[in-house]
């Protein structure tokens, strides 16, 4: 199931399929290690609903829903046990 990253729930895992069209944003994401094929875990939303926190490559990254909405991920069926 391919959905925007922003629509994942806490502790759900996904694999990045597509990055935002905007090359500027896509490039920054790539350099931070968010590439097609990278596995990410949705950690939480900020108290006001935006931005969100995700985990990838062993570290935590926060980004806004506007950008996370354009990142398409394939939702993994099993969720990691915390």
């Amino acid at each position, binding site marked *: 199931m391919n959905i925007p990253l922003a629509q994942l729930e806490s502790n759900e895992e996904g694999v990045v399929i597509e990055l935002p069209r905007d*090359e500027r944003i*896509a490039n920054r994401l*790539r350099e931070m*290690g968010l590439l097609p094929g990278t596995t990410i875990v949705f950690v939480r939303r900020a*108290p006001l609903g935006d*931005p969100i926190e995700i985990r990838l490559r062993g*570290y935590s990254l926060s980004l806004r829903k506007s950008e996370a909405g354009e990142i398409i991920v394939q939702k993994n069926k099993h969720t990691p046990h915390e």
Partner: protein
Amino acid sequence: MIEENIFFQKNYAVVGNPNSGKTTLFNALTGLRQKVGNYPGVTVEKKLGQFIGQHGEKIELLDLPGTYSLSAHAPDECVTRDVLLGLRSDTPRPDRILCVIDASHLERNLYFITQVLELGIPTIIALNMIDLAQAQGTTIDITKLSSELDVPVIACQANAKETLLPLKIALSRAEITRSSWSQQLPSPWARAIDGVAAIWTHDEEKISQRDPLVRMKSLLLLASPDTEIEGLAKEMNAGSLLGIALAQRSMLDRELPSWREVLVSARYERIMELCQAAQGRTSSTSETMTHHLDEFLTHPVWGWFGFFSVMGLMFISIFVVAAYPMSWIEGAFGCVGNLIREFMPQGDLRDLMCDGIIAGIGGVVTFLPQILILFFFIGLLEDTGYMARAAFLMDRVMSKVGLHGKSFIPLLSSYACAIPGIMATRTIENAKDRLVTILVAPLMSCSARLPVYALMIAALFPAGSVSLWMKGALMMGLYIFGTSAALGFAWLFKKTILRGETSIFLMELPPYRCPVLKHVFLQMMQRAGMFLKRAGTVILGISILLWFVASFPKSNLEKSNHDKSSQLEESYAGRFGHFIEPVIAPLGFDWKIGIGLVAAQAAREVFISTLAIIYHVENDDETPSSLSTTLMKETRPNGMLVYTPLTCLSILVFFVLSMQCISTLSVVRRETNSLLWPLFQFCYMTGAAYLASFLVYQGGKLLGFI
């Protein structure tokens, strides 16, 4: 040959990701043997430190700003890139590099580090936070990592001195080989790099096309965003570079449409192979402490509780705790002034010393306790990792006015003083966001406004007339008014003159760490030193200038036993007060308040001491209570009271909004590298202040208030 070499001074540039413990390691290695300066043109701190190597030779370290990639975005990241590429004329290209890696985040750290290895500069890697990696259940095969990267890799813990010896020995090595690490790229990429690299080969025959520096420059130019390629090409300063780079990019567009992605993914793929070979993971439950803390600190309810507690503690410290040392300092400067007054012969020189120089230096130093506490907290919040959470919590609020979560801290710092706030904007990567933050930062009520607020509120509500709560509420209201004005203007500027693409909010949330107090203190002292240098010199100059305009020409009434009040009236400042009276009369101000406003240009709190002189308050010790009772009795020539509630309110509104701080303007000039922006800032803020005071005073009169 080698015997001779070992005694030579060795110069290292220290680089690494943000949060890799780079600066802590730098401090641990060099201790207090540091020199903090500035890179000309940008306000990025240039930190140099040194220590003595194994053979008694000097080893100099240059701490470069942390970055995630050589393709820089923020001004401080650009400094790192430019120094490593040898593009800065003020800083020579380093002979050697010390790369700091956070061992617990090996994969992402290696992205930048492998880029650095390709620069062809002898490099040593410090594998920092090895204890954290081990605690997380990660084992790293250091020998393997070292052989794969083809550079010495030394494990250490920046916060534990005893682990640093092997690193110091490695840094003292006479020879360090260049790494042979290089990133294989598909053929269109390789051709594009060759094509651009040829430019430098033409320019200087000595440089071969295989030169790693030339190749990295070409690669970075090709990969730079469309908006930045022109500027970067100009910086690299090689003839027809831009045209060739653009031509090669269109070739890449045709032959390898995903060329941007390939560049990054190829590197990450190799890094992942390397990590699989050199890194063993025993368990995946990493950083549980951070996870649990964040469950609380970013919780929808408890998160705010924590946030407001931290901010509250910081403000209480800045405004309540700092008040004690501030009064001691004030007292000490008063004593020195009195001593000079007693022992120097009467005359202009004595007055210049007492009222100009001593008062000027005192005015700056008095604020030092607040600045120190502010910087202490900022350092503590940065070191523990909470700063990123504060930005995480506040980003939504900031984004409403078109700003970034990272603008929050500069604005917050501006409650103490706009200067450190403006200095803190350099972490904002988007130039327009940074400028907007700089423009609105002085609207946050700084501590220099506090004495003025206190005096006017005291004059507005005579003792006993209203409860303390009411006064407190008005004070709070002024802060809220200033903050709303800052956010409102930020929104307006983002919609109009500084409209631009929305900035990208990408921020690492580093694991919480126990702060190293020594490091926090060192950072605090360095930043405070910077503040003194920036603000101090300007305030001193302005104080002397203001002393001059308030003391000359000499009053004719010299016989009247040195009447300070009539002297001030006759002086240039007094004449100016009369001159601007028609302009400020609609705000309810008379010429005496006008003089105060002129004097407040040095620093806002000078308004009070000036009023004290004008109204001839006995022993002008700046106590608001005695001054406020004098003010309340003051009448206009027609017998009406000057300081009516409406006038007091008008003065308050004026002080909330107006730009009355030349030192801030001079810092803005340096930060923006232009005269236009400080001028604009002065005009819009003072204009808004005038308009708002006008509306308050005239509107109030219409409604029947006095």
